[in-house]
């Protein structure tokens, strides 16, 4: 790595000896005469060049008297100036009007934004660079309409889930394709099952130049069989011609829970609630207290047994929150260089991140480095390459329902204030399980006795060459190797409450090594030429992708050495195996663009994919798109409409696909197992040789406009229809299998998206702009394998006409004020006109007496007990939001800049598994915590209570699934806020510093929601005690030399 850097630096300093003079001057803008900083001044045909200073000045030594200077800057038209022996050359550059049309990165190339007829959103590095995050993905929340972002967990480095325009797949995944600098990359969830980790963590957000999110078919179809969930194009930073700059950046911050998660009943309330539960249980079952003499002594004994009173003389008690959690400290250090000449450019960086989580054992460390080089070998040949390497170590804990390993679960559910922390006598930790439901012991003792960590090593190496046959015909080849190695460990060591989980001797340790090497090679031929007002662009190419995956797992048990932390100490194998997998994709691609006079645009794309995941007869698929746009603002008749700067109507239609996630789902295979001392094998699947990809038909119409040079807005409507959905179709168990992977069913996603940005103030020293975006989503299952089929995937149901995340459970109707018992809707379904076989109460309260006809379709809402209530489809209650998006405010005043961005989501319901333990009406009355919402219980004297009569083992209560698990998920959250100050130039330049900036950045600072748990929950709406989101505040310094 070092060597490459040295060579690169040597190249940059190359000079050519000649009859030479020093040339100085100033580069200014012809529009207002203001200086242009960082403009490139290069001697044509050489590698000699500099960038202008902040005031536009440049000094160029050793310039041949007959040389020609090329002066360029982004947003201005290039100029070539013969030196002719002059020593002072001032240059005035004309603004490039076309430059208003920013260049954006799209599938297999770049386009001018104004000419683009697809639907795509761009997020620039400004929005990413200062956020205190591990992965850039966390910053995307609320930034682009139609993009939902949610972290799996608040543990540092946890996977971030991105959903673009809804959900197009049942089980082949709903995550977008990630493409880094033109090459499809390994992405997504690389969790071990015990610790959540994302393959995208490797990328230092500061190395990202821009993100383009491709949403519709016109934008994404060129990615064919993997484009259905949209595509995220990541462009990393490249060197810019001009003076070599180096930037040092450091930040430090603090994090803690962003939200008051699960407020609990107080200690005295909890005791009272346990007492009620045992009292009511004893009242209903007199036989249980016959050995106790009286009900009262039974209740007292049971409460004391399950919720023992504190004994301060014997034990030390502590605030468990303080014991288990701390304010996490996050640090980040980066150093980067960027620069070059017109012949060669470099960008290189190193970065180190150290983030602690709230749980005392959670942290992430990452070292990352990147080098990006480009060379112009000749007028026609350009070559380049890049190396990105990252090392990451994550230490964490098991999320979800893990009564011995998840501190958040233990804290909220199990640990009561009355659980002793330590013995007073000698200060040793109290290690007895207190709660008979959970054999949880003091988690502090198990912190050191568990292993839950993951290493990630990732190396991406790329080389490319581009040859220009003429100025309009170019051939480009890329070879890329993307290697990801994840090693994760999971173990229960001496002292952990699960020490004996696998054996009597005790201890368990498992290592997994996963390697994935993805080689991609592509070659494209590009044609681009104008014939008068006719501009034609065309591309043909091919791409081959080869993925080799290996996995090795070793699990060992029986650790006889107490300090053992590695599996070598285990005496016996618990499990050990390895295997590999190959995946291949071969593609041919092409596109054709035509525009006439920058008014009318027409684009077509076509891709043919062949995949190894499908049988020979069905492995090739074709994907295409057509799109067009009309830039009416460029029409002559619009030339008088001065308030309209730009206006465009666009439309697209196209197809894309999703491959089965199963590599060999199409073939029938036998699984191998052990029986006794010999092997055993048996058929493992019900094969489907007709398997093919999911097909996506996608159309989009949109309107983009810029008004008064201040307001830009865009509005669009999309309709995405997916057919041949891959589904583990439930089959009768009598086949010997539970399901078979089948292309059945179809689903649609439709929605509107709207984004507006207003530059309210645009002055030299003061600017203020606000932006707002909103998107709606209507997701609907159109058909399953058979008409009227219902596929239950508790708590969801898939059924024609309902959304993918439609909830189905019992309907809870509140308590009966007469006896305090929970009531549920009976739930029988009746169709309109059906003669009812019992008295039916409809949802709106209409009573339909037995024997009469139902006036409309509906469920019977007659209140009944839980075991007599059926699960019903809760129409209108889904995890799909009615609307979501964000808004942002950016303010700049002199050296200060302030920006904040908010994200919101509304109209959806979440499924909160916390109800089972915390709001269960007394089912679990063995001394665990109870949610604050449970205090208002029914009794003879409190008949208007909201919570049922509490009873031990309550078979009617909240422990059982019902609509009580559904909660309105609406929220508004201040995702990011940054306040930044550029130290005055006059001050910093004295110290030979180009620029110095300090900034304060915060994440998740404010949250508004009616939920009692952090509202930022994965898109499925399902919440299961994952560590909630964190609030982070960080202070940083950036110095550019």
């Amino acid at each position, binding site marked *: 790595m070092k060597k490459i850097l040295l060579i690169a630096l040597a190249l940059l300093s190359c000079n050519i000896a000649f009859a030479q003079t020093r040339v100085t001057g100033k580069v200014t803008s012809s529009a207002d005469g203001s200086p242009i900083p960082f403009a490139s001044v290069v001697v044509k045909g050489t590698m000699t060049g500099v960038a202008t200073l902040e005031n536009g000045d440049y000094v160029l030594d050793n310039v041949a008297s007959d040389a020609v200077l090329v002066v360029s800057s982004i947003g201005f038209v290039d100029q070539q100036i013969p030196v002719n022996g002059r020593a002072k050359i001032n240059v005035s550059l004309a603004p490039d009007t076309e430059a208003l049309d920013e260049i954006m990165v799209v599938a297999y190339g770049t386009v001018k934004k104004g000419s683009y007829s697809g639907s795509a959103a761009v997020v620039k590095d400004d929005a990413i660079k200062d956020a205190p995050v591990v992965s850039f993905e966390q910053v995307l929340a609320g930034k682009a309409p139609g993009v939902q972002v949610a972290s799996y967990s608040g543990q540092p480095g946890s996977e971030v889930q991105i959903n673009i325009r809804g959900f197009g797949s049942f089980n082949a995944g709903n995550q977008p394709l990630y493409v880094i600098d033109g090459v499809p990359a390994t992405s997504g969830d690389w969790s071990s099952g015990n610790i959540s980790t994302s393959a995208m963590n490797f990328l230092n957000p500061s190395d990202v130049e821009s993100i383009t999110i491709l949403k519709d078919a016109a934008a994404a179809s060129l990615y064919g069989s993997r484009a259905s969930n949209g595509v995220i194009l990541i462009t990393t930073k490249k060197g810019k011609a001009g003076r070599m700059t180096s930037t040092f950046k450091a930040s430090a911050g603090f994090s803690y829970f962003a939200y008051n998660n699960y407020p609990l009943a107080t200690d005295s309330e909890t005791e009272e609630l346990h007492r009620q539960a045992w009292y009511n249980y004893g009242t*209903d079952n007199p*036989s249980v207290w016959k050995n106790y003499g009286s009900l009262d002594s039974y209740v007292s004994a049971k409460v004391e047994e399950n919720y023992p009173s504190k004994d301060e003389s014997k034990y030390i008690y502590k605030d468990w929150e303080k014991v288990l959690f701390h304010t996490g400290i996050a640090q980040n250090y980066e150093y980067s260089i960027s620069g070059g000449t017109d012949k060669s450019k470099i960008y290189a960086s190193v970065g180190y991140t150290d983030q602690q989580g709230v749980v005392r054992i959670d942290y992430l460390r990452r070292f990352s480095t990147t080098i990006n080089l480009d060379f112009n*070998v*000749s007028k*026609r040949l350009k070559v380049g390459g890049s190396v990105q390497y990252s090392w990451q170590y994550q230490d964490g804990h098991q999320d979800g329902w893990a009564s011995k390993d998840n501190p958040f679960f233990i804290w909220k559910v199990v640990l009561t204030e009355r659980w002793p922390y330590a013995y007073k006598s000698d200060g040793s930790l109290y290690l*007895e*399980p207190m709660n*008979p*439901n959970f054999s949880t012991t003091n988690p502090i003792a198990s912190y050191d006795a568990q292993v839950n960590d993951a290493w990630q090593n990732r190396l991406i190496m790329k080389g490319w*060459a581009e*040859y220009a046959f003429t100025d309009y015909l170019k*051939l480009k*080849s890329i070879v890329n190797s993307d290697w990801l190695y994840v090693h994760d460990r999971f173990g229960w060591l001496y002292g952990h*409450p*699960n020490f*004996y989980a696998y054996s*009597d001797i*005790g201890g368990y340790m498992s290592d997994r090594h996963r390697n994935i090497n993805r080689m991609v090679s592509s*070659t494209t031929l590009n044609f681009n030429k104008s014939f008068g007002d006719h501009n034609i662009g065309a591309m043909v190419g*091919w791409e*081959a992708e*080869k993925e080799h995956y290996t996995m090795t797992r070793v699990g060992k048990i029986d650790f006889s050495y107490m300090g053992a932390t590695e599996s070598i100490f285990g005496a016996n*194998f618990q*499990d050990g195996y390895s*295997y590999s*997998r190959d995946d*291949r994709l*071969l593609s041919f691609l092409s596109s054709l663009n035509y525009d006439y006079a920058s008014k009318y645009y027409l684009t077509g794309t076509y891709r043919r994919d062949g995949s*190894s995941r499908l049988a*020979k007869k069905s492995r090739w698929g074709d994907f295409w798109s057509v799109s067009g746009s009309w830039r009416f603002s460029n029409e002559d008749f619009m030339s008088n409409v001065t308030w309209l700067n730009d206006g465009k109507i666009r439309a697209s239609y196209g197809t894309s696909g999703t491959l089965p996630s199963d*590599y*060999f789902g199409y*073939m029938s*295979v*036998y*699984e*191998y*197992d*052990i*029986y*006794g*001392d010999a*092997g*055993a*094998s*048996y058929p*493992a699947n*019900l*094969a489907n040789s007709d398997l093919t990809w999911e097909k996506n038909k996608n159309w989009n119409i949109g309107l983009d406009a810029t008004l008064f040079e201040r307001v830009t807005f865009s509005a669009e409507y999309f309709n995405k229809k997916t057919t041949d959905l891959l589904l583990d*179709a439930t089959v*009768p168990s*009598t*086949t*010997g*299998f539970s399901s078979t992977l089948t292309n059945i069913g179809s689903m649609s996603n439709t929605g509107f998206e709207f984004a507006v940005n207003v530059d309210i103030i645009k002055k030299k020293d003061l600017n203020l702009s606000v932006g707002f975006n909103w998107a709606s989503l209507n997701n609907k299952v159109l058909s399953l394998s058979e008409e009227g*089929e219902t596929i239950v995937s508790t708590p969801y149901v898939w059924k024609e006409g309902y959304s993918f995340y439609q909830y189905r459970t019992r309907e809870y109707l509140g308590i009966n004020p007469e006896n305090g018992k929970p009531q549920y809707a009976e739930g029988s379904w009746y169709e309109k006109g059906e003669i009812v076989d019992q008295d039916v109460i409809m949802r709106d309260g209409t009573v339909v007496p037995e024997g009469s006809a139902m006036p409309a379709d509906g469920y019977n809402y007659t209140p009944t007990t839980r*075991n007599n209530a*059926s699960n019903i489809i809760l129409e209108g209650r889904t995890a799909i939001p009615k609307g979501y998006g964000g808004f942002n405010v950016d303010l700049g005043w002199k050296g200060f800049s302030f920006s904040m961005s908010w994200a919101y989501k509304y109209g959806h319901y979440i499924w909160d598994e916390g109800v089972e333990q915390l709001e269960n009406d007394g089912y679990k009355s063995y001394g665990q915590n109870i949610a604050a919402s449970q205090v208002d219980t029914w009794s003879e004297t409190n008949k208007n209570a909201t919570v049922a009569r509490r009873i*031990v*083992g309550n078979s009617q209560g909240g422990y059982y699934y019902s609509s009580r698990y559904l909660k309105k998920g609406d929220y508004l959250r201040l995702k990011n806020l940054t306040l930044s100050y550029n130290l005055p130039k006059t001050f910093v330049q004295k110290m030979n510093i180009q620029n110095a900036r300090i900034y304060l950045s915060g994440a998740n600072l404010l949250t508004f929601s009616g939920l009692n748990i952090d509202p930022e929950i994965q898109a499925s709406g399902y919440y299961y005690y994952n560590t909630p989101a964190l609030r982070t505040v960080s202070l940083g310094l950036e110095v550019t030399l």
Partner: protein
Amino acid sequence: MKKYILHILIVAGIIAGTSSCKGFLDTTPTDSVVAETAMSNLFDAGVVVNGLYTDIKYYTYYGRDLIYMGDMRADNLYPRVIGGQSATIYTLEYESEANTYFGLWTNFYTTLMRANTLLENIEKLEVESASDVATKNDYHGQALAVRAFVYHDIARLYGYPYLKDNGASLGAVILTSPASPSEAKIPRSTVAETYAQALADLDAALPLLSKSKNTGHFNYWAARLLQARIMLYKGDYAGAYTAATDVINNSPYSLVSNANYLDYWGHEGQDETVLELIVTNQGDIDNDGGFIAMFHHLWFNDLNAAASIIPTKKWRDLFANTPNDVRAQMIQYDDPATGVKKTGEYWLNKFPGNKDRGYTFRRNNPHIFRITEAYLIAAEAGLETGATAAASNYLNAVRKRADPTAANVTATLALVQTERQKEFIGEGHRFFDVMRRGGTITRNMATDEHDYAGSSQYKASFSWDYEKVVLPISNNERVSYPELQQNPGYKN
């Protein structure tokens, strides 16, 4: 300039050459075997035969759930703490809406599918030598015996006892070859038809099976004993008597001695055992081994509420007057005075773990057939067919094995039942033994604080007239196959 074009062509050529060759898109799995080649020789067929047993020993079948169904629904065992799945089984409060404890149904059909697939493929194997033919026949016979075994279990769990209505109630969905999803949607047959299928399979299997001991696998004798059991359930006492006595008289199996009785349970391949399933800690099959240590007082060294089941006072009292009975010594008092993590409960210390493999209480081989069962079937069937003297001999052999001080008795049906109750605790028999003869199961809640099933909400006593003595077809099952007939008394 031409040089560069050449360069590009070379580079492009290399790239194209390395990746676009023929077969680029053909890959095969390395972690599983393509079905066409999975059973192409006799050796591999033996591996596939082993695959018949791996799910039967799983905890959703003989590893746990079938034991729950046979012992906990009766008066032998109960769960120690209120709540959880075992309590639901104990109180017979299961509903068609839940699916957690009905892994049984899917497990039955997974095993049937394996047997049917093997039966379909075994004929295609070409073997020549006599020993190979015998091996092939034995494999064939094992598949048939496993199929008969599973069909009988379906009939006794999902159908009413045969003698209640001569097998008129609903039994299994009978499939005798691998079925596609549409082929698998056939209606349930009656219990009588299910029994007929099982007996026909055994008739076909017996001539094929080897008579040698084959630990962990069906042989002739295990199939013969299964035949005796099915005939006993069916009320074909003459047939049951013939089959059971055949096993007693002609097989290599014999009763374990009194002295070795307690130790017997920790060893593999004993002469007492006619069929056991082998549980090991290898191969990610089930981490907890067959029995999830459900009888042990320290479950994973923790006092665990939900996993533990203990013998009822009623069962313990069976030995009140016979302190010398070796089976009474399996009752172990967990005295709180002797240390921490003691519960003050009486535990069943019957299954110590497979010591031959160095395991602890956590991994026991499920004992499916023991020679003792042949004796007790012979006793019961003997009584029913008038062979009282022989019946008494068979019964006394078992009684005196357990308690050498016991006096000889003249066998009665009640004595045989009591002996079965004492002998087979934890082996999944008691519930079926009472039900198949139209008896009544009664729990004595009044005598035991833990016996909460006595509270007002639960049924204390029931016979085959109670609809919940048959399991419901899970609603999940009926989502993809709504025509599958539900058992009476359950919500559709």
